[in-house]
């Protein structure tokens, strides 16, 4: 399938380009289709192309030394990924996998380099996109360094569990993220970390607190005093 100009025009990389310029870009775009579970990019490997999602969802993740998958973001139609390694030249810091059937459009790095050399508007657009990535990551670093989410998630769980005698309360990961002032993906990682510490067990539709003392310790010593 040939990519439509209207799709390219929606991308922040190609905003403010003329139809003629977009037609030139269109010629170097290739299409790839992936099924659920297929790997699109692998952590540590060179990034050969910049990808744009046409349909479906892709998870961007790292795999920890003990084999656990930690999702950093979910990429949806219209979004792009592989930006940083394509423009920076270093190997991929993340892996990317299809969460369901996915159609993506790609531009080979060497082809994108040619566009950048010949089109200053695209170069400016790349700077804008990367600046927004830096802003997002800065916020994440601040969140993780100075306002430990792990501790806030533990506190939230202790509050909602109560003493175990009242009615059972329910929370979604999205609600926990809103309460903790962070992203849903960070909450998911915090829950996995708490589970590995033995504080809780993820049991299908339940979060079972298996050791309140461990959870209190994770929440910070001032909790419950």
């Amino acid at each position, binding site marked *: 399938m040939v990519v439509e100009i209207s799709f390219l025009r929606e991308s922040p990389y190609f905003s403010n380009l003329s139809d003629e310029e977009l037609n030139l870009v269109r010629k170097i775009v290739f299409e790839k289709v992936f099924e659920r579970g297929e790997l699109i990019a692998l952590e540590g490997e060179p990034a050969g192309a910049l990808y744009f999602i046409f349909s*479906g969802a892709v998870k961007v993740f790292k795999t920890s030394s003990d084999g656990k998958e930690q999702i950093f973001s979910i990429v949806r139609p219209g979004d792009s990924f592989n930006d940083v390694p394509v423009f920076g030249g270093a190997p991929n810091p993340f892996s990317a996998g299809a969460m369901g059937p996915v159609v993506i459009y790609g531009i080979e790095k060497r082809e994108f380099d040619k566009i950048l050399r010949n089109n200053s508007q695209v170069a400016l657009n790349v700077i804008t996109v990367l600046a927004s990535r830096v802003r997002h990551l800065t916020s994440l670093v601040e969140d993780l360094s100075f306002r430990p989410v792990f501790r806030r998630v533990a506190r939230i769980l202790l509050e909602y569990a109560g003493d175990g005698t009242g009615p059972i309360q*329910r*929370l979604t990961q999205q609600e926990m993220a809103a309460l903790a002032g962070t992203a849903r993906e960070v909450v998911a990682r915090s829950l996995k970390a708490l589970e590995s510490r033995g504080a809780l067990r993820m049991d299908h539709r339940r979060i079972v607190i298996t050791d309140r003392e461990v959870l209190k310790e994770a929440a910070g010593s001032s909790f419950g005093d």
Partner: protein
Amino acid sequence: MVRMPVLDLGKCNCCGLCVSVCYCNALVVINEVVTVVQTEECGWCTECEAVCPTGAISCPFDIVIEDQVR
């Protein structure tokens, strides 16, 4: 009856991302409307909630203490 993900049709824009990531066929599109189908196969992976761009679908967890469960 199995507890299933909760869908808020007022927020749903029918993008179909949740359907595309659901591996147990608990989510389908019927007459251009996303519909939740009762199924024992739902493993509560919460990927539907994760991919939804509008927050229309949610997978609430019961927060319980071990002794409450026994």
